[in-house]
């Protein structure tokens, strides 16, 4: 019996290793090779060229600068939001908590479209209400605004995890000993949350520099690496240059990611494992409490405003000029977008189950089994998180364009891209929940005579179901809203809704772009709702959904 189990494990490990080597590592290597072999022989000329030319050099520094600014602003906003919603008893907490997470599941262009509709030169706020015509939202400032709104939930998510686990006992003890509430914050709460702050900052930094959708639309002349790599690769057919730019994007993202995963996450300052105990009382003065409430309300208001704008944009004939109501955008979107909608749902639906299964299998192997190369497997599985979509897209085109891996133009290349890019989501959820299950439960089952398959099915699987399904929903969302990798992989036969939205936004058909974004988010929300119903309404589990 044991021998069988061992060989199944060994085979599975081997298969997983090969899959990851082929679909995660190989494309990356191809990009690196292309960038250092511009004329067929090894040369760093592309990199030299990029650093020599000002207009290329500045894309690198622009990206870094953008990342730093947005990481900082998002962490601040996220911290305030997390603190307000988990350390203070505010009215309407559950409502705020839901709204704050909205930007995470939105289509990538939704906020950009809203910003243009509201603050563009024909914007509702800028032109109609304030009468300003010379202000341009395009550029670094617009980009920072949009990215902060999009990405602060990432920081928020990390920080709630950290703040919620800081035991109130410590803070209560301090208060009992006579310290003021602000001193408690400064000396206990905040220092304990510093690893969370660092984690959040780094994660947003990576997300910001990898962002492709927002800069494509609203960056104006503020050139960034992700866009320029795309333009060089697809617009100028300069594969070496595009690849080199992609690698320059990869390096800071990779470093930040590794620092976060292997240095900061290890420094856990959590004082108590599991859920904190002890009475919760407000850690802030009434004045501060009101300020926080005001802040949250404004934040929520802004987020909802942006959503409403997109909804409104779908119905007005020509935003900024003709505010008559019309359904023509819906008709146009249906004509133009029907194929894309079908394709996108199909591709995402096919990819998602595989993503979930793969993630679970790897999670099980990593947590419960011991084998040679375990850490390498875990690391390379998470690689997809660290690598910007642009790099993946270029890598897949380079890697799978020749025999024996002729996949460009097919559905398979898109589905595979989804699976391996989104697998880390399911993987992390799986690892987290498996770690919480005591192996002795499984041992008890085998002791009572069940074989390992039965144990897995009847004991392990039901216990990790919530994590599995939350992994599934997030994988589906990420597949539906992917842009930066997908834009390289769409073809005449297989379209993706996000590419279509981008095209509509670029030609200023904001009405159609709004409608398509709404359709996208409706699909995503529907799936989320289904998943939520499936897991059941449990606050613990919905916390795990994050």
């Amino acid at each position, binding site marked *: 019996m044991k021998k069988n189990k061992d060989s199944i494990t060994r085979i599975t490990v081997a298969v997983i290793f090969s899959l990851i080597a082929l679909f995660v590592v190989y494309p990356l290597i191809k990009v690196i090779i292309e960038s250092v072999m511009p004329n067929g022989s090894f040369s760093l000329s592309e990199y030299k060229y990029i650093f020599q*030319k*000002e*207009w290329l050099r*500045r894309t690198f520094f622009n990206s870094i600068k953008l990342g730093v600014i947005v990481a900082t602003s998002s962490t601040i906003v996220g911290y305030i939001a997390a603190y307000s919603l988990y350390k203070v008893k505010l009215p309407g907490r559950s409502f705020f908590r839901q709204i704050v997470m909205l930007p995470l599941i939105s289509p990538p262009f939704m906020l950009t479209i809203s910003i243009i509709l509201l603050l*563009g*030169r*024909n914007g509702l706020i800028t032109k109609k209400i304030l009468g300003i*015509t010379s202000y*341009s939202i*395009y550029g670094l400032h617009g980009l920072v605004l949009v990215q902060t709104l999009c990405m602060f939930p990432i920081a928020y998510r990390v920080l709630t995890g950290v703040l919620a686990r800081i035991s109130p006992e410590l803070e209560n003890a301090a208060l009992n000993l006579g310290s003021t509430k602000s001193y408690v914050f400064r000396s206990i709460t905040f220092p304990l949350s510093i690893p969370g702050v660092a984690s959040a900052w780094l994660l947003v930094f990576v997300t910001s520099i990898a962002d492709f959708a927002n800069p*494509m639309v609203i960056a*104006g*002349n503020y050139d960034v690496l992700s866009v320029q790599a795309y*333009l060089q*690769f*697809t*617009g*100028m*057919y300069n*594969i070496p240059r595009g690849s080199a730019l992609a690698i320059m994007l990869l390096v800071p993202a990779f470093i930040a990611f590794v620092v976060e995963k292997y240095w900061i996450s290890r420094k856990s300052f959590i004082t108590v494992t599991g859920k904190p105990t002890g009475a919760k009382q407000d850690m802030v003065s009434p004045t501060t409490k009101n300020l926080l409430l005001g802040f949250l309300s404004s934040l929520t208001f802004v987020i909802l405003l942006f959503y409403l704008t997109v909804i409104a944009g779908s119905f007005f004939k*020509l935003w*900024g*000029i003709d505010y008559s109501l019309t359904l023509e955008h819906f008709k146009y979107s249906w*004509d*133009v977008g029907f*194929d894309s909608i*079908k*394709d996108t*749902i*199909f*591709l995402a*639906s*096919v990819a998602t189950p595989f993503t979930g299964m793969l993630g679970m299998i790897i999670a099980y192997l990593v947590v419960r089994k011991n084998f040679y190369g375990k850490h390498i497997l875990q690391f390379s599985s998470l690689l997809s998180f660290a690598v910007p979509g642009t790099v993946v897209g270029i890598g897949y*085109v380079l890697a799978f*364009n*020749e025999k024996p891996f*002729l996949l*460009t*133009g097919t559905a398979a290349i898109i589905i595979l891209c989804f699976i391996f890019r989104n697998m880390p989501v399911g993987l992390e959820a799986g690892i987290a929940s498996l770690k919480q299950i005591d192996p002795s439960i499984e041992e008890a089952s085998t002791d009572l005579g069940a074989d390992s398959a039965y144990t897995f099915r009847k004991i392990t699987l039901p216990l990790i179901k919530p994590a599995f399904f939350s992994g599934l929903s997030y994988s589906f969302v990420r597949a539906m809203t992917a842009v930066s990798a997908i834009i390289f992989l*769409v*073809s*005449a*036969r297989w*379209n993706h809704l996000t590419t279509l939205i981008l*095209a509509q936004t*670029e*030609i*200023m058909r904001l009405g159609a772009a709004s409608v398509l974004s709404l359709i996208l988010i409706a699909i995503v929300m529907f799936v989320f709702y*289904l998943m939520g*119903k*499936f897991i059941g309404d449990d606050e613990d589990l919905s916390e795990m959904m994050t």
Partner: protein
Amino acid sequence: MKKLFSSLLLAILIIGLMSVPTLAESVNVYTSLDEELARTVFEKYQDETGVDIRWVRLSTGEAVSRMMAESANPQASIWVGGVGLGHIQAKESGLTIPFEAENAQHVPANFKDPDNYWTGIYAGPLCFVSNTGRLEELGLEAPKSWADIVKPEYENQVQVANPGTSGTSYNVLATMVQIMGEDEAFEYMKKLDRSVVQYTRSGSAPGKNAAIGEIPIGIGYAHDQVKLKSQGYPLEITFPEEGTGYEVASISLIKGGQETETAKDLYNWLLSEEAAQIYADTFVVPFRDAELQPGAVPISEVNTIDQDDVWAGKNKERLVEKWNDEIYSQ
């Protein structure tokens, strides 16, 4: 609940399966035509012949890049539309094959490839397009010449695309070099840079932005602007008196395409009178006789330069790099 969920999942998969291509005859197309025009044209062809057209819209540069990237395994059989320069580039890179369509005889000789690698379907001159409302607010007049538009009063009022990413804009650059000679042309582009408030990525964006009043003046192709004007936007179209460049939107068969025979039929149909009328209905001016929309400007009525597209194609990379160095990097 489980049942409901599984049936919903099944429903989604069934919806998706509908998108799996049927066994009917089909052809994969890359098009650089305006999205709406492409849709109308291809739907008409589909209705008439029953052939399923799978198409994706790519800009000229993107299309050429795609074809180059896929040269070992082409994913499409024909490229429809796109600046003639791109088609010349594609020919020189060995990405296309010659084809003398029956209808090509109706296309004037200087608008098709002498070796039949590409055939023009319409020509569009470059022009200035101005938003009359914004002009009035700013107390400006619509520019009437290349010399006009670099005058100080137009500073930061103009939008044009980036020559590196847009065929339209490279056309402008190439035109200036052909009018003035290279050194003077680059001096001119530096002055123009002061007037330009933003270099857009797509060639048709400046016109659209002028139409909705985002900026006062754009540079683009006349047919795009005529169409916008007919939709009711307050626009004035002017041509530079020194002479202007133009694009020859063309079609080419892609080498190694899987559906070349079907593509040939489509190619020929795209040169027919019927197709020409569809183009004309969207405000472009086809080479074949067709009833033009009011306001459409035939190329014969515009002062165009003697354009050498082959030269322009050969020098594109060099000139774009020079532009990036001397002007875009400030």
